[in-house]
């Protein structure tokens, strides 16, 4: 399905500069795109529909049938009885500090790597880049032992620290490349005015990097928020679990009750959707900053 679609797409459009011929091409293009979009969204709609239905309805009429009625009971069930509300709170308690921690620390390291010439510059930069490729499973048991010996096992702080540290590589990579695009004249001028490096970083570089950081934050929010494995390994109390790990508990609890499970899953998705909708601009602006030279 995909390869056929690709060739169709490529031949029809190149940046849309030839305005004259566009009119005629419109109709098939819209038909094609609409069809593709519908196919694309079927799984998402199916999940949405399911979450409003009852299990009886599905058992009776099949998973892909027209729902006989809509109700919000599944959401209520997932929110209170399956404790999704509580899990969501934990997710925020873990995600937000991690996010700010990684952005702050990576802006420091990125600043150092982008603005100074020193012997370890490239090796350190490569270390951060290589770190982004690390299969995180390799860290699991050592990190578990570490949290344990620090007395951080079964605390949110352990998760905050590992998320912060693990994402430092990617954030440093992106921010460093962004900071290198900032023209050096600005800093020279500041230095002439007698600013020390920390003030240049704090008062000039950070504000200039805010768009990049906002973009990174959006991206990282979805990554950290959706983490599942670290939560399982580093927490033993159900009451501390974030929503992704909580969903696993929910799946056990509702076995084959798909409507409640999907309702819980959609609730768990809601924060990332909201972030996405409101920060879409940043998300789109910032994603390629890492490659900008």
């Amino acid at each position: 399905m995909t390869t056929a679609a690709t060739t169709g797409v490529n031949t029809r459009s190149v940046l849309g500069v030839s305005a004259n011929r566009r009119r005629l091409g419109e109709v098939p293009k819209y038909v094609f795109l609409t069809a593709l979009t519908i196919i694309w969204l079927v799984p998402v709609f199916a999940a949405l529909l399911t979450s409003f239905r009852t299990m009886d309805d599905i058992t009776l009429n099949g998973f892909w049938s027209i729902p006989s009625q809509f109700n919000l009971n599944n959401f209520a069930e997932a929110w209170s009885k399956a404790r999704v509300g509580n899990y969501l709170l934990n997710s925020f308690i873990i995600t937000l500090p991690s996010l700010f921690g990684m952005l702050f620390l990576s802006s420091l390291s990125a600043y150092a790597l982008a603005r100074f010439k020193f012997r370890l510059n490239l090796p350190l930069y490569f270390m951060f880049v290589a770190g982004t490729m690390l299969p995180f499973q390799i860290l699991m048991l050592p990190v578990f032992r570490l949290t344990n010996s620090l007395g951080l096992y079964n605390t949110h702080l352990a998760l905050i620290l590992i998320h912060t540290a693990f994402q430092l590589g990617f954030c440093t990579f992106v921010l460093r490349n962004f900071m290198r695009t900032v023209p050096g004249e600005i800093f020279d001028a500041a230095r002439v005015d007698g600013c020390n490096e920390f003030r240049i970083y704090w008062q000039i570089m950070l504000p200039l990097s805010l768009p990049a950081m906002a973009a990174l934050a959006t991206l990282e929010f979805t990554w950290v928020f959706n983490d599942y494995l670290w939560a399982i390994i580093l927490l033993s109390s159900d009451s501390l679990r974030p929503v992704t790990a909580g969903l696993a508990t929910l799946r056990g609890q509702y076995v084959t009750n798909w409507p409640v499970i999907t309702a819980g899953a959609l609730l768990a998705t809601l924060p990332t959707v909201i972030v996405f909708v409101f920060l879409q601009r940043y998300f789109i602006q910032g994603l390629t900053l890492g490659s900008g030279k």
Partner: protein
Amino acid sequence: MSRNTLRFLVVAVLLAAAVLAVAPVLAQDFITYNSYNGDPTPRAFDEKVVAMWNEMHPDKPINHSIIAHEDFKQAIRAYLTAQPAPDVLTWFAGNRARFFIDRGLILDFSDMWQAEGLDDVFAPGFTALATVGEGKYFMPTSYYWWAIYYRPSLFEKAGVKAPIETWDELLAACDTFNAAGIAPFTIGTRFRWPAAAWFDYLNMRQNGPEFHINLMLLKESYTDERVKATFARWQELLDRKCFIANPAAYDWNEAVDFMAQGEAAMYLMGGFITDTYPDELEDDLDFFRFPIIDPSIPVGEDAPTDGYFIAAQARNPEGAKEFLAFLASKEVQQMAFDELGRLPTRIDVDISKATKATQQGIALIQGADYVAQFYDRDTTPEMAEAGMDAMMAFWDDPASIDQLLEELEATRARIAAEQAGQ
């Protein structure tokens, strides 16, 4: 986002981190309890037991976490080596418990066992499951049976006589059901273990329980002709299309739907199937012993035992022992028996009011010459993993069995050598 906002946020983060660092301060007398009872019915029971305890002991409440079954199995080593570890944990008897006991991760609660006089009220077989060397490490509290569950109405419809007692009857029944358009057996092998039950039973019926358990203990070879004979039996069933199509697409409780909706007649499953089976259909659900292949061979049954242990690094070992004693008490076992149909490990539990099904299950186990735990509890985790992989590969391509068994044998030999070396 302005500069000031950013500063504010950075400060907020640092503050939040500081607050969180000191957050999980627990009151001294808490008892932490982690369990894997994720499924709805056992979950409700688990929560009820904890509520009972909390009512009786408001001064040492339980801090209870229920973790999904598969997650729990993988996180257990983290729990047990954590500082502090959760106090009381659910676990399985057999090899899976021995692994941790041998490594000194489990608390010896002999003193409590003595004080409670448990020697007098536990059946000897279960006392043996609790004991390693001189100590008591595992508290077996309940067990259940495995059997072929079936719907009498479908048997009637297809004209098959229940119970099916011999191998030939089983094969004939498969043909009859297929002719009637009903799948003989449903099975969901997404997580593989329901297939392992078939291996357990075929191997025990074909070769006897002694050979089976020696195979589990890695003392017999997987390339042995007897293992091949077991798989040959299995292949007979596959050739006759005794199972639903695409079993690997379903997990065990999804596969129950085939039976509930009348598309399949039987399911080789543990007694916990009734937790999931639709209540309104339970009148039309019965079970019988796995058919006998060779009457001259002793009968082995799978009857996995569940229970609890205390982490060696428990924060509150005294509280843990008290709670463990409560979990093993007559009162709780009686409740588990009455409400969940789990069989008690204590001999003083009143089983006179057992349902017909439960009585039948007890008879099934009592009629066995040997009781095994289950494939993935009797053998080592690594062997179980390789074995169940091979079973699924065999299911897909029975002709590859010789090669699969050779690989299994290589794995077995390696693990056995590693064990001998330790």
